[in-house]
């Protein structure tokens, strides 16, 4: 033993005797983490959150969250001598006078966009593989919470510099709050501490953006990860992988090394974007002034779908007891998002209600083997995409020589027609893929080699697939739909019959499948 090893040993022993860390570490560092690229998507979100914390802290050193009016006397000449808020002026100061300030601002903003995009693709992977099923429903709900908070956090951060574009965004947010029946105008008055824009809003959202929400994120992410830890990771099906084990690499050192490396890669990509591509050039937007607006005012992409929904709704208002209800803002701004996010959060429970499946699942589904779920997911994504496209309708119009009106009508009709279409197409696609799997197991792989039979006929040689592959293609469960009785033995309708009918129908839709190959099928083939 060398001297340094002896010292290390003494220190380790000292710590262990006082904390019992060794036992804990042995137990936990031997945990196994399965290896699949899609399991790294949540990590992209995690690492960009850390980057957001670090770069954001840097920005707080100089950012002045105040709507106090100042005269600009900084380095950016085209704004010289203009009146603006201290918030805007300090953002210019960070951009042009603080060393590395602009880079840091751009890293912070790119990291925010990557954070949100990573959450969305992570969510897609969790959804399409059925990882949200029992016992992981809570983690799914926490995830939806993180997604929602992410949208809010991003919007508030985007609003902080008090530039012309974000000010326009706040104005729209104010309109959405005001659209709430009865309480709307009071609520808006309360949030802004008076009439719009006032002097209170930026300081308030600053506290929320740098303190309250990051705290909430830290708490939720901690719980989220502890649950992943405690419940262990799900895994894709494969030989040797069961509902009872996890096959993969030990957390330490293999996984830790990879994860550590991955952090630096995420940081590298974010810093690269921050260094080469401009984002939110607020000096070009100018300071916010209520009378001004720019063509093509857009929010960041994660809010774009909301903007798109508001843009596509026709003017609809009704007057009730002297109150004006602006349906054209209320429906796209609050009701539709409310339904969407509630539906998303509750989906694990809805699915288990439809299928009657209350068992634990640790093996993931291949998306094709859950056609109904996959189709529903693609349908929701289609909805969001159309809304998002309409959010950029003016930019798209001028880029592709279309008219705003064409895009608007495309989205108005498309938002009703295309998602159901996407559902039908996806479901059929899943079933065809199942059929292809079945054929593969039964008849093997086409080799492309042709052989001439003695009587002159050409046939293609089929090669049987490996047992591993065959196992993968046949391991999934295929459960029959729920059998729900509508009436009791004497033909008397039971209470809740409608609910049962609905449930039975949904369950049936969910259970549609191409029968997978069974052992009997294979035996039969061997006979021939």
């Amino acid at each position, binding site marked *: 033993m060398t001297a340094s090893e002896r010292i290390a040993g003494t220190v380790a022993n000292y710590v262990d005797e006082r904390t019992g860390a060794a036992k804990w570490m042995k137990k936990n560092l031997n945990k196994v983490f399965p290896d*699949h*690229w*899609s*399991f*790294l*998507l949540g*990590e*992209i979100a995690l690492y960009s959150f850390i980057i957001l914390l670090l770069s954001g802290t840097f920005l707080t050193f100089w950012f002045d969250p105040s709507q106090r009016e100042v005269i600009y006397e900084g380095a950016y*000449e*085209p*704004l010289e*001598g*203009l009146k603006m808020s201290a918030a805007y002026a300090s953002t210019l100061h960070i*951009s042009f006078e603080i060393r590395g300030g*602009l880079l840091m601002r*751009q890293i912070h903003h*790119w990291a925010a*966009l*990557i954070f949100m*995009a*990573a959450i969305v*693709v992570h969510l897609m992977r969790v959804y399409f593989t059925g990882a949200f099923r029992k016992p992981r429903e809570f983690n799914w709900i926490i995830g939806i919470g993180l997604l929602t908070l992410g949208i809010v956090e991003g919007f508030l951060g985007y609003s902080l510099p008090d530039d*012309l*574009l974000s000010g326009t965004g706040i104005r729209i947010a104010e309109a959405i709050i005001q659209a709430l029946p009865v309480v709307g105008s009071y609520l808006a008055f309360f949030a802004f501490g008076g009439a719009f824009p006032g002097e209170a809003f930026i300081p308030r959202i600053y506290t929320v953006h740098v303190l309250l929400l990051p705290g909430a994120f830290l708490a939720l992410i901690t719980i989220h990860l502890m649950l992943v830890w405690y419940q262990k990771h799900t895994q894709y099906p494969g030989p040797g992988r069961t509902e009872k084990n996890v096959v993969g690499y030990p957390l330490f050192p293999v996984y830790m090394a*990879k994860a550590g490396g*991955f952090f630096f*890669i*995420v940081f590298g*990509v*974010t810093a690269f*974007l921050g*260094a*080469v*591509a*401009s*984002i939110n*050039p607020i*000096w*070009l*937007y*100018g300071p916010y002034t209520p*009378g*001004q*607006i*720019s*063509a*093509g005012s*857009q929010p*960041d*992409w994660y809010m*774009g779908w909301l903007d798109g929904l508001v843009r596509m709704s026709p003017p609809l208002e009704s007057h009730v007891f002297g109150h004006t209800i602006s349906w054209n803002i209320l429906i796209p701004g609050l009701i539709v998002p409310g339904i969407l996010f509630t539906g998303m959060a509750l989906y694990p429970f809805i699915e288990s209600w439809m299928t009657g499946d209350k068992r634990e699942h640790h093996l993931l589904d291949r998306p094709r083997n859950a056609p109904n779920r996959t189709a529903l997911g693609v349908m929701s994504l289609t909805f969001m995409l159309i809304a998002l496209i309409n959010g*950029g309708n*003016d*930019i*798209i*119009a*001028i880029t592709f020589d279309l*008219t*705003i009106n*064409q895009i608007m009508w495309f989205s108005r009709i498309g938002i009703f027609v295309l998602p159901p279409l996407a559902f039908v197409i996806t479901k059929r696609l899943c079933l065809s893929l199942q059929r292809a799997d079945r054929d593969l197991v039964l008849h093997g792989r086409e080799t492309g080699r042709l052989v001439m039979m003695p009587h002159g006929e050409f046939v293609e040689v089929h090669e049987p697939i490996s047992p591993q592959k065959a196992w993968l293609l046949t391991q999934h469960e295929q459960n029959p739909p729920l059998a729900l009785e509508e009436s009791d033995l004497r033909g008397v309708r039971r209470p809740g019959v409608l609910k049962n009918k609905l449930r039975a129908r949904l369950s049936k839709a969910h259970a549609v499948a191409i029968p997978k190959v069974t052992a009997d099928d294979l035996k039969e083939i061997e006979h021939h």
Partner: protein
Amino acid sequence: MLALLSIGTTFSIAGAATEAPITAAERSALIDEGQRIFLKGCSSCHGINLEGSAIAPALLGVGAASVDFQVATGRMPVADMSVQIARKQPVYDEKQVEALAAYVSSLAPGPQVPGESQLNYERDGSTAEGGELFRTNCAMCHNFAAQGGALSQGKYAPTLMGVEARHIYEAMITGPQSMPVFSDKTITPNEKLSMIKWIKAVEAEPQLGGAALGRVGPVTEGLLVWTLGLGLLVGVAVWLAMKAR
């Protein structure tokens, strides 16, 4: 100013380097030349006496500024009548444009082409004030950085990058197609110069934060994140999961 506005003895030549008054003889030769070109290239739509037709407006009183703007930016003569008549390679050279302008304004007075000394925005304009005025008056159509924007029904406000100072000025005083007129009462000549100065500053501004992504705001940023940003990261994730198998 008054002298400039009243057509008569002094006549500023469109875009020419000198603003020296020209003789009456030279002027009438110019007008004749202008009429000749007009009859050949414009009268089919605008009528033989500028009276207009079913498809094109009368040009009486539109002034030399309007003619100079329309013809020197290639909008006139119209090649194809679409939703909006677009800027294109001019058909006529400077001299011919000048003749056309002289001819049209000889029949009825209207806004004149601003001369060089009137367009000294470097001297008479203020960039910051110009930016402020631009954001108040123009950004809602032309975008915050004068990159252009879409209007309803397929119309659009074009980008102002690369547009000559003279044409920017003329656009403001004549208000082509769906653009409003900004008279000297609403926006003084000096304020106009300030805006031109700001537009030129934006045009010359280096890409401060890296690739400017079209200066159209968050749409292109979002596109970049979903393609390059996420593309790289997911690519690396796939590669990492494959490594050390």
